[in-house]
C-alpha cells in the first residue's frame, strides 16, 4: 500500500532526479565542501539538529564544525548530545513517535540494518547524486566505505570515524637489552611484539614476571563487558570462529574456538594488573599512560594521547599525563585483523523537516577538506577514515611517530573486521555482554558460551530464521566480515 509518506518520498525523489544531471555535473567539478556550502546558503536562518555522542565527541560540532557551518551558510546547528548507550533508543523513539526532532544523526554502522528496516534513515543516494559527492565518497578507506555505508545497495550513512582497535606497545621495553636477555633466558625465544594470540599469551606473563618489580605488567585491557564484547568478536574471528552456521542460522559462538577464547581471556587476567576485570576505557588508558602496562589494545585516541598530542588542552585535562611519550609503538592486534569496534556514520533522519539542509551539513562534515581538519582536532575523538587522512603531510608532522601511528590505522582500515550487524544486533550484543560479565564472575566458559548461543538461537527464532539468514548472508559476504584465512 502506498502511503502519503511514500508519495512524499516519490515527489522528493523525482524532484531530485530532475535536477540531478545539471547540478551533478556542476557539483562534481567543485570541491564537495564548497558545493555543500553554496547550496546550503538558501537555508540561511534555519536551524538543523544533529544527534552526537555526548562528551568529547560532541566538541567537534559544538566548538568547531557547528560554528564554522553557521559562519559559512547562516544555518544554526543544534547539537543533541546523547550517551552512546542511549543513541539508538533516542533515534528510534524519535522515529516511532514521528516527532522529527532530529535532522541529522550519528549512527553506529552495526545499527544501520535495524534503523533502515524500521524506516528511520533517509536514502542518501539522490542527494549524493545531486550534489556530486560520489567521487569523494570513493576516497573513504575501503573497509569503511565498502562495509559501513550501504544497506540493501543504497547509501544510508557516510562513514565518518575510523574507529579500529590498535595494539599499543612500549618500544623501549621491547628494545631493552636487559628485558630481551631475561626473556630469552626464561623462554629460550627472542622477545618480539606478538602477532598471534598464542604468542601474546606466551609473551605477556613473562613480561609481567620480568617487569612486575618495577610496577609494570605485561599487558592490560579494558575488561568491562561493552568493550570486551568487541574484543571477543575480534579474537573469535581471528582464531577462526564464525558467528552462525550459514545454512541453519544456529549460533556457533559456543564452538571450541569460542570456548578457547573465553578460557584464554580469563586466564590472562591472572598476569594482568589486579582488578583488570573492572577496567573501562579510562582505567586502561591511565594504566598505559602511567607506564603500568607494556601492551594494550584500544581505539586510536590512545595513540595520540600517549604521544601527548593535544593533552595540554583544558578539555583533556582529565587525561593522565603521559609518561611514555616517544616510547610507544603501534601494531595490529594479534591475529592481524582488528575490530572496527563501533565507529560512526553520518545519516539523515527520515522524519526530518530539513532533510536537504541536514544532508548538506553532513556532506560538508564528511568532505575531504573538512574531515581532514576534524580528525586532527585533538579533543574530538574522530579518527582518520579517508585515504588522504593517512597521508596528510600536516597530520604526519603532528608528533615524531605520527607516521607509524597513521600507518597502523591505515593497515587497520584495510584489514579491519566489521562488528556483527544483523537484525536486532543489540540483542545479540547484549547476550555477548552478559557472557563476558559471567566470565569475569567465574562461571564455566563452556556453560556461558552455550547459554549465549542458546540466547542467540532464541533471538533468531523470534526474528525469523529466513529473514535473519538473508541479512546475515549479506553481512557475511562483505569484505570485512571474516578474515581471509
Amino acid at each position, binding site marked *: 500500500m502506498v502511503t502519503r509518506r511514500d508519495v512524499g518520498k516519490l515527489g522528493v525523489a523525482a524532484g531530485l532526479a530532475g535536477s540531478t544531471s545539471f547540478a551533478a555535473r556542476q557539483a562534481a567539478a567543485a570541491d564537495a565542501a564548497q558545493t555543500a556550502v553554496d547550496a546550503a546558503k538558501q537555508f540561511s536562518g534555519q536551524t538543523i539538529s544533529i544527534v552526537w555522542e555526548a562528551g568529547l565527541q560532541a566538541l567537534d560540532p559544538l566548538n568547531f564544525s557547528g560554528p564554522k557551518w553557521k559562519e559559512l551558510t547562516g544555518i544554526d546547528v543544534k547539537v543533541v548530545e546523547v550517551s552512546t548507550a542511549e543513541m539508538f533508543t533516542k533515534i528510534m523513539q524519535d522515529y516511532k513517535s514521528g516527532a522529527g526532532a532530529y535532522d541529522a544523526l550519528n549512527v553506529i554502522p552495526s545499527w544501520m540494518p535495524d534503523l533502515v528496516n524500521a524506516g528511520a534513515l533517509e536514502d542518501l543516494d539522490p542527494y549524493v547524486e545531486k550534489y556530486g559527492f560520489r567521487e569523494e565518497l570513493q576516497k573513504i578507506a575501503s573497509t569503511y566505505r565498502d562495509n559501513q555505508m550501504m544497506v540493501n545497495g543504497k547509501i544510508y550513512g557516510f562513514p565518518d570515524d575510523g574507529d579500529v582497535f590498535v595494539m599499543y606497545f612500549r618500544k623501549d621495553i621491547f628494545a631493552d637489552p636487559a628485558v630481551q636477555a631475561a626473556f630469552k633466558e626464561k623462554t629460550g625465544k627472542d622477545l618480539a611484539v606478538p602477532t598471534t594470540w598464542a604468542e601474546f599469551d606466551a609473551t605477556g606473563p613473562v613480561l609481567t614476571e620480568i617487569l612486575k618489580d618495577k610496577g609494570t605488567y605485561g599487558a592490560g585491557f579494558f575488561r568491562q563487558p561493552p568493550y570486551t564484547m568487541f574484543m571477543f568478536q575480534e579474537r573469535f574471528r581471528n582464531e577462526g570462529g564464525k558467528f552462525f552456521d550459514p545454512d541453519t542460522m544456529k549460533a556457533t559462538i559456543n564452538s571450541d574456538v569460542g570456548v578457547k577464547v573465553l578460557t584464554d581471556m580469563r586466564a590472562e587476567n591472572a598476569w594482568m594488573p589486579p*582488578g583488570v*576485570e*573492572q577496567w573501562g576505557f579510562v582505567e586502561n588508558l591511565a594504566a598505559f599512560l602511567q607506564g603500568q602496562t607494556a601492551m594494550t589494545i584500544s581505539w586510536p585516541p590512545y595513540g595520540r594521547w600517549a604521544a601527548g598530542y593535544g593533552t595540554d588542552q583544558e578539555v583533556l585535562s582529565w587525561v593522565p599525563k603521559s609518561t611514555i611519550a616517544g616510547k610507544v609503538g603501534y601494531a595490529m592486534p594479534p591475529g592481524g585483523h582488528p575490530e572496527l569496534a563501533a565507529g560512526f556514520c553520518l545519516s539523515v533522519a527520515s522524519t526530518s523537516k530539513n532533510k536537504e539542509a541536514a544532508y548538506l551539513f553532513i556532506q560538508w562534515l564528511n568532505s575531504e577538506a573538512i574531515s581532514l581538519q576534524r580528525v586532527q582536532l585533538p579533543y574530538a575523538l574522530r579518527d582518520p577514515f579517508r585515504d588522504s587522512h593517512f597521508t596528510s603531510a600536516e597530520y604526519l608532522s603532528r608528533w615524531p611517530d605520527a607516521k607509524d601511528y597513521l600507518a597502523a590505522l591505515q593497515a587497520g582500515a584495510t584489514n579491519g573486521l566489521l562488528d556483527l550487524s544483523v537484525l536486532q544486533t543489540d540483542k545479540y550484543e*547484549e547476550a555477548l555482554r*552478559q557472557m563476558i560479565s559471567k566470565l*569475569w*564472575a567465574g*562461571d564455566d566458559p563452556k556453560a556461558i558460551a552455550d547459554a549465549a548461543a542458546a540466547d542467540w538461537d532464541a533471538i533468531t527464532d523470534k*526474528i525469523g530464521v529466513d529473514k535473519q539468514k538473508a541479512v546475515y548472508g549479506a553481512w557475511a559476504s562483505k569484505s570485512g566480515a571474516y578474515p581471509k584465512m
Partner: protein
Amino acid sequence: MPAIAAHHQPDRNFKYWIIAPAIFLLLAVGLFPLIYSLVVSFMRIDMMDTDTSFAGLYNYKQLFKDLRLWQSLLHTLIITAVALPLELLFGLAMAYLFLEKMPGRQIFVSLLVLPTIISPIVAGATWRLLLDNQYGPINQILGWFAGHRVNLLWTINPFLVYPAIIFCEIWQWTPFMFLILLAALSNVDKSQTEAAEIDGASFIRTFRYIVLPAIWPVMAIAILIRGLDLFRIFDIIWALTMGGPGTMTETISIYTYTMGFKQFETSYTAAIAFLVIAILTVVVTWAIRRMGLAK
C-alpha cells in the same frame, strides 16, 4: 423559596467546572496511558513490526516462559526482603538514639538526612567509584586493616555484589526511616512509658506493648513506602552493576527498561508492566489489610 433556589443553581454547577480541568488532566496523564498500555499489551508491536492487530494473550503467555523475567522478580524480592528490615531496624535504632535531647542534635539529624536528598543514580555512581578496585578508598581502607593490598571486585564477584548493592541502598534510605520513626517516637505519650518504667517493665516489653502500638500506623506507612520503592529499585543497581554480573542483579525495573527501551519489545513490555501492577495490587492490598491501615 423556589426563586432563590433557581438563582443559586448556576453556582452549584460552577464548582464542577472548576475541578473539571484537574479531573481531565488526571485522566489524561493517568488513566489514558494505563488503558493505552493495556491495549498495546494485546498487540505485537516491537522494533521491527508495528502489528496493531489483536494478538490475544500471546504476550501474557510469553511471560510464563520467560525465565529471565522471573529471575529478575526473584532478585527484586531478595533485595527487598534483606534491605527493608535492615533499614527499619537501623532507622529505629537511630531514631531512639536521637530521641533524647543532646548537644548538636539538629546538626547531626541534618547530616544524617543528606543521603536521601542525593539522586539515587548519583549515589550509585559515587559508590561505584568508592568500591572501585583500582582507585576506590574502600579496598584501600580494608587493606590498612588487612596489612596487605585488598583486591575485592565488589561489582563483579558474585559473592560481593549483593552485599555491595544492599549496603548502598541501606546507606541511602535508612535516614528516611529514621526521620519518619523519629517523628513517630516523638509523639509517643511519655507518661505511659515512664509509668511502665516505674512499674519495672523491661525496655522490650515497654516497646512491644506501649511504643510499637503508638508508632505502628506511621511505621506501617514507612514500610509500605520503602517496600514499594525497593520493588522498583533501578538507579543504584544500574549505576553499580547494570544488572550484572550477567543478569545476577537484574531487577524487574531493569528488565522492563531493557525490554522496552533497549530492545523495543513494546507490547511485551506492556504485558510485563501489567504483571507488575497485578502483583503489586495483590501485595499492597494484603499489606494494607494486614497492617490494619484500612481502618
